[in-house]
């Protein structure tokens, strides 16, 4: 995962609620077995509409409506947003799995109250550049919440698997104390 640095950029306004991951990256692109190259398929069906928001705006920050990224667990959704060029998505709320997936790959999901997101949308429409500072935990000047652990991991670009493997002893101790309730191998 690449380390997250402060972003200052124009923002793309996508003021729609409940944008689901089926729209962000439709199923036909889930057949690829690679992690990269999804950006060109981002919002594949919606982009056929010349009026679609992404067709006439650009920037590294996406300003979205509530419950952004609801639906399927496909990490292809954050992959495609990141590959397209977004570093940050700001919304009043996110689908839980989408948010988690984004944090895994260093696409920063910023949750702000709906009124503040609306204000940022107005500022973005007026052409203002916004700054998202993860160190200070601010977006367009508004403070947002993110726990220290996750923030540090994003700032340093640390791999969660490597971090957890440092806990191998604790995991082994847990396994010793809690015999597995089932086995998939013994099913034959």
């Amino acid at each position: 995962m690449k380390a997250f640095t402060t972003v200052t950029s124009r923002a793309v306004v996508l003021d729609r609620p409940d944008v689901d991951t089926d729209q962000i990256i439709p199923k036909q692109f889930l057949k690829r077995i690679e992690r990269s190259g999804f950006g060109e398929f981002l919002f594949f069906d919606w982009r056929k509409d010349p009026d679609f928001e992404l067709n006439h705006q650009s920037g590294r920050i996406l300003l979205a409506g509530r419950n952004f990224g609801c639906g399927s667990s496909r990490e292809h959704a954050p992959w495609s947003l990141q590959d397209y060029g977004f570093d940050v998505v700001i919304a009043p709320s996110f689908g839980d799995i989408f948010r988690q997936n984004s944090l895994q790959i260093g696409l920063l999901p910023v949750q702000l109250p709906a009124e503040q997101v609306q204000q940022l949308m107005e500022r973005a429409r007026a052409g203002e550049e916004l700054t998202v500072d993860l160190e200070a935990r601010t977006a367009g000047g508004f403070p947002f919440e993110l726990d220290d652990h996750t923030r540090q991991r994003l700032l340093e670009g640390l791999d969660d698997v490597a971090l957890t493997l440092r806990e191998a002893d604790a995991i082994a101790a847990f396994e010793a104390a809690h015999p597995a309730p089932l086995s998939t191998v013994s099913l034959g």
Partner: protein
Amino acid sequence: MAKTLLDKIWERHVVRPGGDGPDLLYIDLHLVHEVTSPQAFESLRLAGRPVRRPDLTIATMDHNVATGDDTPIDPLSQQQLDTLRDNCAAFGVPLYATGSGREGIVHVIGPELGLTQPGITIVCGDSHTSTHGALGALAFGIGTSEVEHVLATQTLPQRKPKSLRVTFVGEPAPGVGAKDYVLAAIGRLGVDGGVGHVIEFAGPAIEALSVEGRLTICNMSIEAGARAGLIAPDETTFAYLRERGVPRRDDWRDLSSDADAVFDREVEIDVGAIRPQVTWGTNPGMVASIDDVVPEPADEAAERALTYMGLQAGTPIREIAVDRVFIGSCTNSRIEDLRAAAAVVRGQRVHPSVRAMVVPGSAQVKAQAEAEGLDRIFVDAGFEWRRAGCSMCLGMNPDVLQPGERCASTSNRNFEGRQGAGGRTHLVSPSIAAATALAGHFATA
């Protein structure tokens, strides 16, 4: 202090408390399918890491498989299936491949094989992992990076979600069941009403349901935004497990929320007031009773949904004609679902303008249905009877809607294009789907 069922399962699985950050949670069962795993295995390979517990991991093929005898799948789908087979062989993960007799939709085979058990933690790279909560397991969907994390460490850093209890009271009217309960609940909560929460479904109407009905309910927790659904295990659960060769265990005791446990939120729903449900829009919260009309759009999103769905506000739902009927998916493809649909279609014919299909959720469900003669009932009525898989729930395989086609579907998502670009999906129960196939428009049995 009084605890919820979520509290109890969570506490049993904390390897290391996280303090301000996430807890490190142990995972008892990891289900794997072909779509969300290739990149995870590839990362393990690149880092030279093994799968820590292949004996707690199981893979199946479901999303891409062809369900008809005559339908070849495209090379990319084949590559994804081959990749899963190679990865399972290389990393020692048991695989129920197509043709093994045990394959099927990942959320159908877990309970069916007795792997889904009370009190355990289950993850899968699939949002409908919430299904398994019906047996009292804490089960939630994860993304591919997390799949890799679980393969490598058998753990996951997680923050504990908040708790929401939905209590179903009352007696349902005839023809109203689990699918209607959960659609009504999503209509009430909204598609983001459960975000950040685990929903515990409780109350007498839940206790009266079979395990299969409970699976349908927990399956759709994610459609209310909740990552997991939970139902406290009871005698019904234990009997279901016993039939699958899983004897009752001591640690299943005390797997219920304490009487005085406090939930972050509580909602009560009277099932006596629920009529059969039909969605009219492009998310599962856009739902009405079959006796209602298509509602006036309340906002821009609803307007967009009606345009996409090709519907006029004020149209009686029963007058909406359909082109296709799909009975299947991890929501409603188990034996009881097929029995309910077969009871409606027995001796009747599918409407001439409708193409209808039944896709059992697993090879075992298919075999059981055939042993009971359900396949004949469907085929004689003019349904296509297919092999197990996700099929037209998401159309990653040859089963898709054509642009503009309207479908009554027993699946869980009516998102734009979900069943095929331009396709229009209405979510219903198996008996409504069956009655609709016969009538050519939405109908009750």
